[in-house]
Protein backbone atom coordinates (compact mmCIF):
# COMPACT_ATOMS: atom_id res chain seq x y z
CA UNK A 1 0.00 0.00 0.00
CA UNK A 2 2.70 2.41 0.96
CA UNK A 3 4.78 1.76 -2.09
CA UNK A 4 1.87 2.42 -4.44
CA UNK A 5 0.88 5.65 -2.78
CA UNK A 6 4.49 6.81 -2.83
CA UNK A 7 4.72 6.01 -6.52
CA UNK A 8 1.48 7.85 -7.24
CA UNK A 9 2.65 10.85 -5.26
CA UNK A 10 5.95 10.87 -7.13
CA UNK A 11 4.02 10.65 -10.39
CA UNK A 12 1.80 13.56 -9.42
CA UNK A 13 4.84 15.59 -8.38
CA UNK A 14 6.51 14.82 -11.70
CA UNK A 15 3.43 15.80 -13.66
CA UNK A 16 3.17 19.03 -11.74
CA UNK A 17 6.87 19.73 -12.15
CA UNK A 18 6.50 19.14 -15.88
CA UNK A 19 3.66 21.63 -16.11
CA UNK A 20 5.52 24.18 -14.03
CA UNK A 21 8.51 23.72 -16.26
CA UNK A 22 6.39 24.93 -19.17
CA UNK A 23 5.47 28.16 -17.50
CA UNK A 24 8.76 30.05 -17.68
CA UNK A 25 9.30 29.00 -21.30
CA UNK A 26 5.83 30.30 -22.11
CA UNK A 27 6.47 33.56 -20.33
CA UNK A 28 9.91 33.80 -21.88
CA UNK A 29 8.57 33.41 -25.39
CA UNK A 30 8.47 37.19 -25.60
CA UNK A 31 11.86 36.67 -27.22
CA UNK A 32 10.25 37.18 -30.62
CA UNK A 33 9.26 40.66 -29.43
CA UNK A 34 12.92 41.53 -29.02
CA UNK A 35 13.42 41.23 -32.78
CA UNK A 36 10.92 43.98 -33.51
CA UNK A 37 12.40 46.07 -30.72
CA UNK A 38 15.93 46.04 -32.05
CA UNK A 39 14.72 47.47 -35.36
CA UNK A 40 13.11 50.45 -33.64
CA UNK A 41 15.14 53.64 -33.63
CA UNK A 42 16.45 54.53 -30.17
CA UNK A 43 15.24 57.79 -28.64
CA UNK A 44 18.38 59.96 -28.53
CA UNK A 45 16.95 62.57 -26.19
CA UNK A 46 15.90 60.19 -23.42
CA UNK A 47 18.33 59.19 -20.67
CA UNK A 48 19.30 55.54 -20.43
CA UNK A 49 16.38 53.81 -18.68
CA UNK A 50 16.23 50.25 -17.46
CA UNK A 51 14.53 47.92 -15.03
CA UNK A 52 10.94 46.86 -14.63
CA UNK A 53 7.95 49.18 -14.86
CA UNK A 54 4.63 48.33 -13.16
CA UNK A 55 1.55 50.10 -14.48
CA UNK A 56 -1.93 50.03 -12.92
CA UNK A 57 -4.57 51.35 -15.33
CA UNK A 58 -8.34 51.70 -15.54
CA UNK A 59 -10.08 48.82 -17.33
CA UNK A 60 -11.23 51.14 -20.13
CA UNK A 61 -7.58 51.85 -21.00
CA UNK A 62 -6.80 48.19 -21.80
CA UNK A 63 -6.19 48.42 -25.53
CA UNK A 64 -4.66 51.90 -25.37
CA UNK A 65 -2.12 51.17 -22.64
CA UNK A 66 -1.10 47.81 -24.11
CA UNK A 67 -0.25 49.70 -27.29
CA UNK A 68 1.45 52.57 -25.45
CA UNK A 69 3.50 50.12 -23.39
CA UNK A 70 4.68 48.32 -26.51
CA UNK A 71 5.72 51.58 -28.17
CA UNK A 72 7.44 52.64 -24.95
CA UNK A 73 9.40 49.37 -24.81
CA UNK A 74 10.51 49.90 -28.41
CA UNK A 75 11.95 53.30 -27.45
CA UNK A 76 13.50 52.03 -24.24
CA UNK A 77 14.55 48.44 -24.95
CA UNK A 78 16.12 48.02 -21.51
CA UNK A 79 12.83 48.76 -19.75
CA UNK A 80 10.62 45.76 -19.13
CA UNK A 81 6.99 46.85 -18.80
CA UNK A 82 5.31 44.20 -16.64
CA UNK A 83 1.89 42.94 -17.82
CA UNK A 84 -0.36 45.89 -16.98
CA UNK A 85 -2.86 45.44 -14.16
CA UNK A 86 -6.30 46.53 -15.42
CA UNK A 87 -9.34 46.82 -13.17
CA UNK A 88 -11.91 49.32 -11.97
CA UNK A 89 -10.13 52.53 -10.91
CA UNK A 90 -11.49 52.28 -7.35
CA UNK A 91 -10.13 48.72 -6.97
CA UNK A 92 -6.72 49.84 -8.21
CA UNK A 93 -6.73 52.92 -5.95
CA UNK A 94 -7.51 50.72 -2.93
CA UNK A 95 -4.73 48.28 -3.86
CA UNK A 96 -2.24 51.11 -4.30
CA UNK A 97 -3.19 52.58 -0.91
CA UNK A 98 -2.57 49.17 0.68
CA UNK A 99 0.86 48.98 -0.87
CA UNK A 100 0.47 47.38 -4.29
CA UNK A 101 3.79 47.76 -6.15
CA UNK A 102 2.75 50.25 -8.85
CA UNK A 103 5.05 52.80 -10.51
CA UNK A 104 2.33 54.45 -12.60
CA UNK A 105 -1.40 54.80 -11.96
CA UNK A 106 -3.87 55.85 -14.65
CA UNK A 107 -7.41 56.43 -13.39
CA UNK A 108 -10.57 56.89 -15.43
CA UNK A 109 -11.63 59.83 -13.27
CA UNK A 110 -10.22 62.46 -10.97
CA UNK A 111 -12.10 61.22 -7.90
CA UNK A 112 -10.16 57.95 -7.74
CA UNK A 113 -6.91 59.79 -8.39
CA UNK A 114 -7.78 61.99 -5.39
CA UNK A 115 -8.09 58.80 -3.32
CA UNK A 116 -4.38 58.17 -3.76
CA UNK A 117 -3.41 61.87 -3.75
CA UNK A 118 -1.00 61.30 -0.85
CA UNK A 119 0.95 58.88 -3.07
CA UNK A 120 0.54 60.64 -6.43
CA UNK A 121 3.52 62.73 -7.51
CA UNK A 122 1.90 65.02 -10.10
CA UNK A 123 -1.28 63.79 -11.79
CA UNK A 124 -1.81 65.01 -15.35
CA UNK A 125 -5.02 64.76 -17.36
CA UNK A 126 -4.22 62.88 -20.57
CA UNK A 127 -7.56 61.88 -22.13
CA UNK A 128 -11.31 62.16 -21.84
CA UNK A 129 -14.22 59.88 -22.59
CA UNK A 130 -18.00 59.94 -22.84
CA UNK A 131 -20.68 57.29 -22.35
CA UNK A 132 -22.71 55.34 -24.89
CA UNK A 133 -25.46 52.77 -24.56
CA UNK A 134 -24.05 49.41 -25.63
CA UNK A 135 -26.53 46.86 -26.96
CA UNK A 136 -25.91 43.38 -28.38
CA UNK A 137 -25.66 43.20 -32.19
CA UNK A 138 -29.14 43.46 -33.68
CA UNK A 139 -30.43 45.33 -30.63
CA UNK A 140 -32.81 42.57 -29.40
CA UNK A 141 -34.22 44.83 -26.67
CA UNK A 142 -35.15 47.61 -29.14
CA UNK A 143 -33.29 50.21 -27.11
CA UNK A 144 -33.57 53.64 -28.70
CA UNK A 145 -32.53 56.11 -26.03
CA UNK A 146 -31.68 56.51 -22.36
CA UNK A 147 -35.35 56.52 -21.32
CA UNK A 148 -35.86 53.01 -22.72
CA UNK A 149 -33.38 51.71 -20.10
CA UNK A 150 -36.08 52.32 -17.47
CA UNK A 151 -38.24 49.59 -19.06
CA UNK A 152 -38.38 46.84 -16.38
CA UNK A 153 -38.63 44.19 -19.12
CA UNK A 154 -35.07 44.98 -20.21
CA UNK A 155 -31.99 43.48 -18.59
CA UNK A 156 -29.66 46.41 -18.00
CA UNK A 157 -26.18 46.19 -16.46
CA UNK A 158 -24.28 49.19 -15.13
CA UNK A 159 -20.92 49.90 -13.52
CA UNK A 160 -20.88 50.26 -9.73
CA UNK A 161 -21.10 53.93 -8.62
CA UNK A 162 -17.62 53.67 -7.05
CA UNK A 163 -15.92 53.13 -10.40
CA UNK A 164 -15.67 56.02 -12.85
CA UNK A 165 -17.98 54.59 -15.51
CA UNK A 166 -20.59 54.01 -12.79
CA UNK A 167 -20.24 57.52 -11.41
CA UNK A 168 -20.59 58.94 -14.91
CA UNK A 169 -23.60 56.68 -15.60
CA UNK A 170 -25.26 57.95 -12.44
CA UNK A 171 -24.64 61.57 -13.43
CA UNK A 172 -26.01 60.98 -16.92
CA UNK A 173 -29.13 59.11 -15.76
CA UNK A 174 -29.81 61.75 -13.08
CA UNK A 175 -29.37 64.59 -15.55
CA UNK A 176 -31.85 62.98 -17.94
CA UNK A 177 -34.22 61.98 -15.12
CA UNK A 178 -34.13 58.25 -15.90
CA UNK A 179 -34.48 55.67 -13.11
CA UNK A 180 -32.89 52.32 -13.97
CA UNK A 181 -33.03 49.12 -11.95
CA UNK A 182 -29.90 47.33 -13.11
CA UNK A 183 -29.88 43.53 -13.17
CA UNK A 184 -26.23 43.65 -12.14
CA UNK A 185 -23.70 46.18 -10.89
CA UNK A 186 -20.21 45.43 -12.19
CA UNK A 187 -16.83 46.38 -10.74
CA UNK A 188 -15.34 47.59 -14.02
CA UNK A 189 -16.45 48.69 -17.46
CA UNK A 190 -15.12 45.65 -19.33
CA UNK A 191 -17.38 43.43 -17.20
CA UNK A 192 -20.42 45.45 -18.35
CA UNK A 193 -19.31 45.23 -21.96
CA UNK A 194 -18.65 41.47 -21.69
CA UNK A 195 -22.21 40.85 -20.48
CA UNK A 196 -23.70 42.91 -23.31
CA UNK A 197 -21.43 41.30 -25.91
CA UNK A 198 -22.44 37.84 -24.69
CA UNK A 199 -26.09 38.79 -25.14
CA UNK A 200 -26.81 38.22 -21.44
CA UNK A 201 -27.84 41.86 -21.04
CA UNK A 202 -30.04 43.94 -23.36
CA UNK A 203 -28.15 47.13 -22.67
CA UNK A 204 -25.36 48.66 -20.61
CA UNK A 205 -23.66 52.02 -20.25
CA UNK A 206 -20.01 51.93 -21.27
CA UNK A 207 -17.45 54.36 -22.65
CA UNK A 208 -17.55 55.37 -26.29
CA UNK A 209 -14.02 53.95 -26.64
CA UNK A 210 -15.03 50.52 -25.34
CA UNK A 211 -17.27 49.72 -28.31
CA UNK A 212 -14.73 50.73 -30.97
CA UNK A 213 -13.88 47.61 -32.94
CA UNK A 214 -16.10 45.24 -30.92
CA UNK A 215 -18.11 43.17 -33.40
CA UNK A 216 -20.85 41.81 -31.13
CA UNK A 217 -21.93 45.21 -29.82
CA UNK A 218 -23.71 48.26 -31.23
CA UNK A 219 -23.52 51.71 -29.67
CA UNK A 220 -26.23 54.34 -29.24
CA UNK A 221 -25.14 57.84 -28.28
CA UNK A 222 -27.73 59.05 -25.77
CA UNK A 223 -29.03 62.58 -25.21
CA UNK A 224 -26.87 64.50 -22.78
CA UNK A 225 -23.87 62.20 -23.20
CA UNK A 226 -21.55 64.97 -24.43
CA UNK A 227 -22.16 66.84 -21.15
CA UNK A 228 -20.91 64.00 -18.96
CA UNK A 229 -17.20 63.81 -19.63
CA UNK A 230 -14.71 61.67 -17.73
CA UNK A 231 -11.25 63.10 -17.50
CA UNK A 232 -8.38 60.56 -17.16
CA UNK A 233 -5.40 61.48 -14.95
CA UNK A 234 -2.09 59.59 -14.93
CA UNK A 235 0.68 59.90 -12.36
CA UNK A 236 3.97 58.56 -11.09
CA UNK A 237 3.57 57.19 -7.56
CA UNK A 238 5.78 58.29 -4.67
CA UNK A 239 6.59 54.65 -3.87
CA UNK A 240 7.62 53.86 -7.44
CA UNK A 241 10.43 51.31 -7.55
CA UNK A 242 11.50 52.74 -10.90
CA UNK A 243 10.64 56.48 -10.76
CA UNK A 244 12.73 57.44 -13.82
CA UNK A 245 11.04 54.97 -16.14
CA UNK A 246 7.68 55.86 -14.60
CA UNK A 247 8.21 59.57 -15.30
CA UNK A 248 9.33 58.79 -18.85
CA UNK A 249 6.20 56.69 -19.41
CA UNK A 250 3.89 59.44 -18.12
CA UNK A 251 5.70 61.94 -20.34
CA UNK A 252 5.22 59.59 -23.28
CA UNK A 253 1.47 59.26 -22.60
CA UNK A 254 0.98 63.04 -22.67
CA UNK A 255 3.38 63.53 -25.61
CA UNK A 256 2.11 64.04 -29.16
CA UNK A 257 2.89 60.39 -30.06
CA UNK A 258 1.02 59.06 -27.05
CA UNK A 259 -1.91 61.35 -27.71
CA UNK A 260 -2.11 60.14 -31.31
CA UNK A 261 -2.51 56.54 -30.09
CA UNK A 262 -5.30 57.57 -27.71
CA UNK A 263 -7.04 59.67 -30.36
CA UNK A 264 -7.01 56.75 -32.82
CA UNK A 265 -8.77 54.61 -30.24
CA UNK A 266 -11.54 57.17 -29.80
CA UNK A 267 -10.42 58.99 -26.67
CA UNK A 268 -11.17 62.70 -26.45
CA UNK A 269 -8.53 65.37 -25.94
CA UNK A 270 -7.56 66.15 -22.33
Amino acid sequence: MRRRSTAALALATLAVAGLVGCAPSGAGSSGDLDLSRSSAPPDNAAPELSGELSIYAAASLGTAFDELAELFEQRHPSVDVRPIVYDGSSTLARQILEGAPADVFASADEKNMDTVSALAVAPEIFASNTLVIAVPAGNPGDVTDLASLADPALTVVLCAPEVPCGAASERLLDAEGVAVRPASIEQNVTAVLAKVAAGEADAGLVYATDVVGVADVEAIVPEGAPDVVNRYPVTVLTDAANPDAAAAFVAFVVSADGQAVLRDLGFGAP
Partner: protein
Amino acid sequence: MTHRRDAGGFVPRILAVPAVVGLALLVLPLSALVLRVEWSTLWADITSPEALSALGLSLVTGLIATVLCVLVGVPLALVIARAGRRSAALLRALVTIPLVLPPMVGGVALLFLFGRTSWFGGILAEWGIRVPFTTGAVVLAQTFVALPFLVLALEGSLRTTGTAYEQAAASLGAGRWTILRRVTLPLAAPGLIAGIVLCFARAIGEFGATALFAGNAPGVTQTMPLAIYTAFNGAGVSQGTAVALSLLLLVTAVGVLLLVRAWRAEAPR
Protein backbone atom coordinates in the same frame (compact mmCIF):
# COMPACT_ATOMS: atom_id res chain seq x y z
CA MET B 1 -43.10 -9.21 -1.20
CA THR B 2 -39.44 -10.01 -1.50
CA HIS B 3 -36.71 -7.96 0.08
CA ARG B 4 -33.30 -8.14 -1.40
CA ARG B 5 -30.90 -8.37 1.53
CA ASP B 6 -27.87 -7.48 -0.57
CA ALA B 7 -25.91 -4.25 -0.87
CA GLY B 8 -29.03 -2.45 -2.05
CA GLY B 9 -30.19 -2.14 1.55
CA PHE B 10 -33.60 -0.79 2.53
CA VAL B 11 -33.59 2.76 1.18
CA PRO B 12 -37.10 3.76 -0.02
CA ARG B 13 -37.00 3.61 -3.81
CA ILE B 14 -38.80 6.93 -4.25
CA LEU B 15 -35.72 8.68 -2.82
CA ALA B 16 -34.00 7.92 -6.10
CA VAL B 17 -35.93 10.84 -7.64
CA PRO B 18 -34.50 13.67 -5.46
CA ALA B 19 -31.13 11.91 -5.56
CA VAL B 20 -31.11 12.11 -9.37
CA VAL B 21 -32.20 15.76 -9.23
CA GLY B 22 -29.35 16.50 -6.85
CA LEU B 23 -26.86 14.70 -9.05
CA ALA B 24 -28.16 16.55 -12.12
CA LEU B 25 -27.71 19.86 -10.31
CA LEU B 26 -24.04 19.00 -9.84
CA VAL B 27 -23.33 17.39 -13.20
CA LEU B 28 -25.39 19.43 -15.71
CA PRO B 29 -23.66 22.81 -15.20
CA LEU B 30 -20.28 21.15 -15.60
CA SER B 31 -21.50 19.39 -18.76
CA ALA B 32 -22.66 22.78 -20.07
CA LEU B 33 -19.13 24.05 -19.47
CA VAL B 34 -17.64 21.15 -21.40
CA LEU B 35 -20.12 21.75 -24.27
CA ARG B 36 -18.91 25.35 -24.56
CA VAL B 37 -15.28 24.33 -25.01
CA GLU B 38 -13.88 25.26 -28.42
CA TRP B 39 -11.99 22.05 -29.03
CA SER B 40 -10.30 23.44 -32.13
CA THR B 41 -8.58 26.21 -30.16
CA LEU B 42 -8.39 24.40 -26.80
CA TRP B 43 -4.69 23.61 -27.02
CA ALA B 44 -3.81 27.12 -28.21
CA ASP B 45 -5.96 28.62 -25.44
CA ILE B 46 -4.34 26.54 -22.72
CA THR B 47 -0.82 27.14 -24.00
CA SER B 48 -1.10 30.90 -24.54
CA PRO B 49 1.58 32.74 -22.52
CA GLU B 50 -1.04 34.33 -20.25
CA ALA B 51 -2.71 31.00 -19.54
CA LEU B 52 0.60 29.22 -18.94
CA SER B 53 1.74 31.95 -16.60
CA ALA B 54 -1.50 31.72 -14.60
CA LEU B 55 -1.33 27.92 -14.61
CA GLY B 56 2.33 27.86 -13.57
CA LEU B 57 1.71 30.41 -10.84
CA SER B 58 -1.26 28.43 -9.52
CA LEU B 59 0.70 25.18 -9.39
CA VAL B 60 3.81 26.70 -7.80
CA THR B 61 1.91 28.68 -5.17
CA GLY B 62 -0.47 25.76 -4.58
CA LEU B 63 2.47 23.41 -3.95
CA ILE B 64 4.22 25.85 -1.61
CA ALA B 65 0.96 26.46 0.26
CA THR B 66 0.49 22.69 0.60
CA VAL B 67 4.01 22.30 2.01
CA LEU B 68 3.33 25.12 4.49
CA CYS B 69 0.04 23.46 5.45
CA VAL B 70 1.91 20.19 6.13
CA LEU B 71 4.58 21.94 8.20
CA VAL B 72 2.11 23.67 10.51
CA GLY B 73 -0.99 21.54 9.97
CA VAL B 74 0.47 18.16 11.01
CA PRO B 75 1.63 19.46 14.42
CA LEU B 76 -1.69 21.28 14.83
CA ALA B 77 -3.66 18.13 14.04
CA LEU B 78 -1.50 16.13 16.51
CA VAL B 79 -2.13 18.70 19.23
CA ILE B 80 -5.90 18.72 18.63
CA ALA B 81 -6.15 14.92 18.39
CA ARG B 82 -4.34 14.43 21.69
CA ALA B 83 -5.84 17.41 23.56
CA GLY B 84 -8.58 17.12 26.17
CA ARG B 85 -12.15 17.10 24.93
CA ARG B 86 -12.90 20.79 25.62
CA SER B 87 -9.72 22.30 24.28
CA ALA B 88 -9.94 19.98 21.26
CA ALA B 89 -13.46 21.24 20.55
CA LEU B 90 -12.32 24.84 20.82
CA LEU B 91 -9.26 24.30 18.63
CA ARG B 92 -11.30 22.40 16.07
CA ALA B 93 -13.82 25.24 15.90
CA LEU B 94 -10.99 27.74 15.32
CA VAL B 95 -9.48 25.59 12.57
CA THR B 96 -12.87 25.23 10.88
CA ILE B 97 -13.47 29.00 10.65
CA PRO B 98 -11.81 29.48 7.23
CA LEU B 99 -14.03 26.67 5.90
CA VAL B 100 -17.27 28.40 6.78
CA LEU B 101 -16.21 32.01 6.15
CA PRO B 102 -16.57 33.46 2.69
CA PRO B 103 -12.95 33.43 1.44
CA MET B 104 -13.27 37.18 0.73
CA VAL B 105 -13.53 37.76 4.46
CA GLY B 106 -10.26 35.89 4.86
CA GLY B 107 -8.74 38.19 2.25
CA VAL B 108 -9.96 41.31 4.05
CA ALA B 109 -8.67 39.93 7.36
CA LEU B 110 -5.25 39.18 5.89
CA LEU B 111 -5.13 42.65 4.36
CA PHE B 112 -6.01 44.20 7.72
CA LEU B 113 -3.14 42.28 9.31
CA PHE B 114 -0.45 42.72 6.65
CA GLY B 115 -1.69 45.85 4.82
CA ARG B 116 0.44 48.96 4.97
CA THR B 117 -2.26 50.80 6.93
CA SER B 118 -2.26 48.21 9.77
CA TRP B 119 0.13 48.30 12.73
CA PHE B 120 1.77 44.96 11.92
CA GLY B 121 1.97 45.72 8.20
CA GLY B 122 3.39 49.12 9.09
CA ILE B 123 6.19 47.52 11.12
CA LEU B 124 6.94 45.12 8.27
CA ALA B 125 6.96 48.04 5.83
CA GLU B 126 9.57 49.81 7.99
CA TRP B 127 11.76 46.73 7.62
CA GLY B 128 11.20 46.89 3.89
CA ILE B 129 8.93 43.81 3.83
CA ARG B 130 5.80 44.13 1.75
CA VAL B 131 3.39 41.20 1.83
CA PRO B 132 0.10 42.18 0.09
CA PHE B 133 -0.01 42.09 -3.72
CA THR B 134 3.00 39.78 -3.95
CA THR B 135 3.27 36.13 -4.91
CA GLY B 136 3.86 35.52 -1.21
CA ALA B 137 0.42 36.94 -0.51
CA VAL B 138 -1.07 34.37 -2.89
CA VAL B 139 0.65 31.58 -0.92
CA LEU B 140 -0.56 33.01 2.40
CA ALA B 141 -4.14 33.32 1.17
CA GLN B 142 -4.07 29.76 -0.16
CA THR B 143 -2.57 28.45 3.06
CA PHE B 144 -5.25 30.24 5.08
CA VAL B 145 -8.15 28.63 3.21
CA ALA B 146 -6.55 25.21 2.62
CA LEU B 147 -5.17 24.51 6.11
CA PRO B 148 -8.49 23.28 7.62
CA PHE B 149 -8.76 20.55 4.98
CA LEU B 150 -5.44 19.04 6.03
CA VAL B 151 -5.89 19.50 9.78
CA LEU B 152 -9.43 18.11 9.93
CA ALA B 153 -8.67 15.10 7.70
CA LEU B 154 -5.54 14.20 9.66
CA GLU B 155 -7.09 14.87 13.06
CA GLY B 156 -10.01 12.57 12.27
CA SER B 157 -7.58 9.87 11.20
CA LEU B 158 -5.41 10.27 14.33
CA ARG B 159 -8.44 10.14 16.59
CA THR B 160 -9.76 6.95 14.98
CA THR B 161 -6.47 5.07 15.36
CA GLY B 162 -6.26 5.97 19.05
CA THR B 163 -3.16 5.68 21.25
CA ALA B 164 -3.00 1.93 21.98
CA TYR B 165 -0.17 1.25 19.52
CA GLU B 166 1.72 4.31 20.72
CA GLN B 167 1.48 3.06 24.32
CA ALA B 168 2.71 -0.34 23.24
CA ALA B 169 5.65 1.23 21.42
CA ALA B 170 6.45 3.39 24.45
CA SER B 171 6.37 0.37 26.76
CA LEU B 172 8.93 -1.26 24.46
CA GLY B 173 11.21 1.73 24.97
CA ALA B 174 10.59 3.85 21.86
CA GLY B 175 11.15 7.60 22.20
CA ARG B 176 8.54 10.24 21.26
CA TRP B 177 10.09 11.05 17.88
CA THR B 178 10.43 7.36 17.02
CA ILE B 179 6.79 6.73 17.94
CA LEU B 180 5.67 9.69 15.82
CA ARG B 181 7.72 8.52 12.85
CA ARG B 182 7.20 4.74 13.10
CA VAL B 183 3.72 4.42 14.64
CA THR B 184 1.54 7.54 14.71
CA LEU B 185 2.06 8.97 11.24
CA PRO B 186 2.07 5.64 9.33
CA LEU B 187 -1.20 4.69 11.02
CA ALA B 188 -2.71 8.05 10.09
CA ALA B 189 -1.22 8.01 6.58
CA PRO B 190 -4.53 7.62 4.70
CA GLY B 191 -5.95 10.69 6.45
CA LEU B 192 -2.71 12.60 5.95
CA ILE B 193 -2.55 11.86 2.22
CA ALA B 194 -6.23 12.61 1.70
CA GLY B 195 -5.73 15.86 3.61
CA ILE B 196 -2.69 16.83 1.53
CA VAL B 197 -4.48 16.18 -1.76
CA LEU B 198 -7.62 18.08 -0.72
CA CYS B 199 -5.44 20.89 0.62
CA PHE B 200 -3.66 21.20 -2.74
CA ALA B 201 -6.93 21.09 -4.68
CA ARG B 202 -8.41 23.81 -2.48
CA ALA B 203 -5.26 25.92 -2.79
CA ILE B 204 -5.25 25.97 -6.60
CA GLY B 205 -8.99 26.73 -6.62
CA GLU B 206 -8.65 29.66 -4.20
CA PHE B 207 -10.19 32.87 -5.50
CA GLY B 208 -11.76 35.21 -2.96
CA ALA B 209 -8.97 35.71 -0.46
CA THR B 210 -6.40 35.93 -3.26
CA ALA B 211 -8.41 38.56 -5.14
CA LEU B 212 -8.53 40.89 -2.14
CA PHE B 213 -5.19 40.20 -0.49
CA ALA B 214 -2.95 39.51 -3.48
CA GLY B 215 -4.74 41.37 -6.28
CA ASN B 216 -4.79 40.47 -9.95
CA ALA B 217 -1.40 41.26 -11.47
CA PRO B 218 -0.59 39.02 -14.48
CA GLY B 219 2.46 36.87 -13.81
CA VAL B 220 2.72 37.92 -10.16
CA THR B 221 -0.59 37.22 -8.44
CA GLN B 222 -2.96 36.30 -11.27
CA THR B 223 -3.64 32.61 -10.57
CA MET B 224 -5.94 30.43 -12.68
CA PRO B 225 -9.18 31.36 -10.88
CA LEU B 226 -8.36 35.07 -11.23
CA ALA B 227 -7.39 34.64 -14.88
CA ILE B 228 -10.73 32.91 -15.48
CA TYR B 229 -12.61 35.71 -13.71
CA THR B 230 -10.71 38.42 -15.57
CA ALA B 231 -11.20 36.70 -18.91
CA PHE B 232 -14.88 36.23 -18.27
CA ASN B 233 -15.23 39.93 -17.51
CA GLY B 234 -13.88 40.71 -20.93
CA ALA B 235 -10.30 41.70 -20.17
CA GLY B 236 -6.97 39.93 -20.38
CA VAL B 237 -7.09 36.52 -22.00
CA SER B 238 -10.12 35.72 -24.17
CA GLN B 239 -13.36 34.09 -23.05
CA GLY B 240 -12.31 30.98 -24.96
CA THR B 241 -9.34 30.83 -22.65
CA ALA B 242 -11.62 31.30 -19.65
CA VAL B 243 -13.60 28.22 -20.67
CA ALA B 244 -10.44 26.27 -21.51
CA LEU B 245 -8.83 27.14 -18.17
CA SER B 246 -12.05 26.26 -16.34
CA LEU B 247 -12.02 22.87 -18.03
CA LEU B 248 -8.39 22.37 -17.03
CA LEU B 249 -9.18 23.26 -13.41
CA LEU B 250 -12.17 20.90 -13.49
CA VAL B 251 -10.09 18.03 -14.88
CA THR B 252 -7.40 18.68 -12.26
CA ALA B 253 -9.99 18.68 -9.45
CA VAL B 254 -11.63 15.47 -10.64
CA GLY B 255 -8.23 13.83 -11.04
CA VAL B 256 -7.19 14.87 -7.54
CA LEU B 257 -10.44 13.58 -6.03
CA LEU B 258 -10.11 10.24 -7.85
CA LEU B 259 -6.60 9.93 -6.44
CA VAL B 260 -7.95 10.43 -2.92
CA ARG B 261 -10.59 7.79 -3.60
CA ALA B 262 -7.92 5.34 -4.76
CA TRP B 263 -5.93 5.86 -1.57
CA ARG B 264 -8.97 5.54 0.64
CA ALA B 265 -9.94 2.24 -1.00
CA GLU B 266 -6.60 0.76 0.02
CA ALA B 267 -6.68 2.22 3.49
CA PRO B 268 -6.80 -0.17 6.44
CA ARG B 269 -9.95 0.04 8.51
